[in-house]
């Protein structure tokens, strides 16, 4: 870690400031204007050099930085694409098994290469060993699944830890072996970008592109496999082969991620981006695109921050950036984010409250002595006071005021000169519809579901808001009211 490709080599305090600034700047797309405004509130000595460093990192001016940042971005992209399918196939934990199972492969490959008289540190050789053992690990899980009565999470837990333990043990043996350059072999556990050379970049970028391309080629097949494997099999698609192909792709991404992110954290790069993307879209194609962007962005930003601040391992920062993007998505995601869902909920609550208000006014009118016409739908001219309304339901003064204001703006009610309220024509029609739905449901519950009349009001209170036209039609058929169409029946529970 000492020979990190750090560009900022100033004192500790400066580094700290640089880190904070970099993190902030990275998330807000820095501009020169932004830089000038912060200058006034921050120590100039910290800001200027940091910003130039920042710019040089972000714009990939340093050769080493360029290699690392582009590699991790490509890795993130591929992980985002393949991770989408891994997540939808509900095989995320299998990715974890894969990555942990690579460790003994690395140690074993090193030993074999030393035994054959090499230096032992050829990256492709080590990664080949990792790949073999990753697939062995998956094979073990599937064997245990098929031939024992263990549940698959148990099998995965056992394989994951045994392979990792075996890897640690082999690493110990490697350290005590004569010959070979074994320094830095453990960096595969936590990842280390410092030692990356151009050939590594070519390897990572090549594998990442190839894996993404395969994923896109088999998009349709993977989609079917993840959604409904039984149907896929009945159509003759080779489900097991497709699963194997998917696991091989995951293995490839894991293996190229070993160097940058390390085997413990690489799983985060496979799971977090698609999980974040799920908050933004309900379409698989877009999900994959967003996931790829989140993954690539995590790799890019994470590696940049790590380049700016020495002693910040790239793997950890990449995962933290991915997690930050996940949290942002969870809150702001346009399809299923917390805010969107809260807004939908609020809109629904308002609609329900409005319908309750209209029904309350309608029912108060029914009781009003002014309405002797005998026809329930023509009573809308009777006015209702605020006090009457407040007593009709358990709502508080402020909520009811707000509700009345909103209903007035929607032209459902209008105030009378005396300070009371009447329903407008539109409001009366809507009120009649809801009262009718409410009572239809009540009558249905009493006559068809044998529920006591004094219990039905609360049930109907919930249901009246969600009755669609075809449900109402069915209710009308079942209940068979002796009334003209659209007429509001009397309340069945007095």
């Amino acid at each position, binding site marked *: 870690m000492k020979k990190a490709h750090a560009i900022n080599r100033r004192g500790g305090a400066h580094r700290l400031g640089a880190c904070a600034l970099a993190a902030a700047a990275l998330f807000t797309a820095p501009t020169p204007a932004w830089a000038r405004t912060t200058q006034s509130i921050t120590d100039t000595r910290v800001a200027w050099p940091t910003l130039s460093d920042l710019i040089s990192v972000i714009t990939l001016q340093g050769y080493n930085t360029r290699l690392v940042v582009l590699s991790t971005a490509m890795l993130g992209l591929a992980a985002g694409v393949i991770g989408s399918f891994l997540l*939808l196939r509900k095989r995320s934990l299998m990715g974890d098994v894969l990555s942990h199972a690579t460790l003994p492969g690395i140690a074993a490959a090193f030993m074999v290469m030393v035994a054959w008289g090499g230096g032992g540190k050829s990256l492709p050789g080590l990664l080949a060993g990792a790949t073999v053992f990753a697939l062995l690990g998956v094979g073990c899980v599937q064997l245990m699944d098929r031939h024992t*009565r263990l549940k698959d999470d148990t099998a995965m837990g056992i394989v994951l830890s045994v392979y990792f333990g075996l890897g640690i043990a082999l690493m110990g043996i490697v350290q005590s072996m004569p010959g070979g350059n074994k320094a830095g072999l453990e960096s595969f556990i936590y990842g280390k970008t410092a030692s990356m050379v151009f050939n590594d970049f070519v390897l990572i970028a090549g594998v990442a592109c190839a894996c993404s391309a395969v994923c896109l*080629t*088999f998009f*349709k*097949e993977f*989609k*079917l496999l*993840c*959604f*409904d494997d*039984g*149907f896929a*099999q*009945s*159509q*003759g*698609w080779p489900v097991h082969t497709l699963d194997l192909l998917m696991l091989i792709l995951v293995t490839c991404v894991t293996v190229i991620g070993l160097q940058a992110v390390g085997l413990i954290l690489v799983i985060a790069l496979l799971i977090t981006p698609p999980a974040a993307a*799920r908050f933004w*879209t*309900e*379409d*698989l194609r877009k*999900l994959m695109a967003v996931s790829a962007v989140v993954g690539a962005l995590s790799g890019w930003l994470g590696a940049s921050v790590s380049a700016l601040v020495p002693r910040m391992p790239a793997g950890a920062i990449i995962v933290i950036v991915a997690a930050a993007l996940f949290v942002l998505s969870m809150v702001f995601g346009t399809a299923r984010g917390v805010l969107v869902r809260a807004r939908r909920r609020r809109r629904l609550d308002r609609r329900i409250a409005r319908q309750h208000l209209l029904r309350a006014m309608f029912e108060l009118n029914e009781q009003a002595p002014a309405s002797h016409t005998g026809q329930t739908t023509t009573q809308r001219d009777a006015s209702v006071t605020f006090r009457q309304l407040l007593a009709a339901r358990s709502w508080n003064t402020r909520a009811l005021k707000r509700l009345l204001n909103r209903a007035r703006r929607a032209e459902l009610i209008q105030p009378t000169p005396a300070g009371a309220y009447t329903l407008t024509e539109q409001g009366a029609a809507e009120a009649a519809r809801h009262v009718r739905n409410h009572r239809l449901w009540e009558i249905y519950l009493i006559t068809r579901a044998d529920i006591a009349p004094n219990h039905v009001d609360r049930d109907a209170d919930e249901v009246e808001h969600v009755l669609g036209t*075809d449900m109402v039609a*069915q209710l009308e058929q079942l209940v068979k009211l002796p009334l003209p169409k659209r007429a509001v029946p009397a309340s069945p529970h007095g």
Partner: protein
Amino acid sequence: MKNAPAAEQPNPTPAGATPVQPATGHEHPPDSPLSIHDMTVAYQRKPVLWDVDLDIPEGKLIGIVGPNGAGKSTLIKACLDLIPKASGLVSVYGKPYRRQRKLVGYVPQRESVDWDFPVSALDVVTMGRYGKIGWCMPVTRAHKQAAMTALDRVGIADLASRQISQLSGGQQQRVFLARALAQDARLYFMDEPFAAVDAATEKAIVAILQQLKTSGKTALVVHHDLHTVPEYFDWVIFLNMRVVAFGPTREVFTQENLHKTYGGKLTLLDQAAQALVIAERGGS
């Protein structure tokens, strides 16, 4: 019995099944849509279906009824090679199923998939065309159109772009049915298509089944509502770990067969199956 030509003996009757008369004057074609020969299915050594031997007549709607755990879904899944058979042969239109997949449509149970999956109704129906589209080829406009037509037939074309979790249970069931229609098959397997659907959906499914029948297609439908069996199905398979009875509904839908199939006690077959499993686990 295994090699008996279907033309001569259209309804081989396995031991224990109620003898059935061949449909009046109707000769089955030699290549019946589905012939099951002496099929036994086991889950982890536990037999769940014993010695099923059936020849399904063409152009009929066939209901599969039986209590929970009778092996109704298992029968379908074993025919479709989704679970291994302990023994037996299945042929579709005279050839092994493996070579006739394009002639077979499948409606799995609705609960068998995750409806939170990020696809639209049209996407799911289009999956019925994947077999015709082939490996790695893109979905063309013509296939999209075929999927749209199928959605229209089940009456929810207006919901094509809706994400599937935003559909009601009945609409989801119609999506599955539309996907099978998009397969454009001759023999359909449907696993509980009427389970927990609204009245409108039930009506739509019945109408589709009638259309299939009129165009000469055959459908095997797992069904749980005994009241509607005589109305919906031409033939019935009574199943309870074996074929209790099989034949035209008006002949086999009798109190006696219902009692035999649903008779509350643990049958000896089930006891034997459990004994096999316990022996396997070392507890004999």
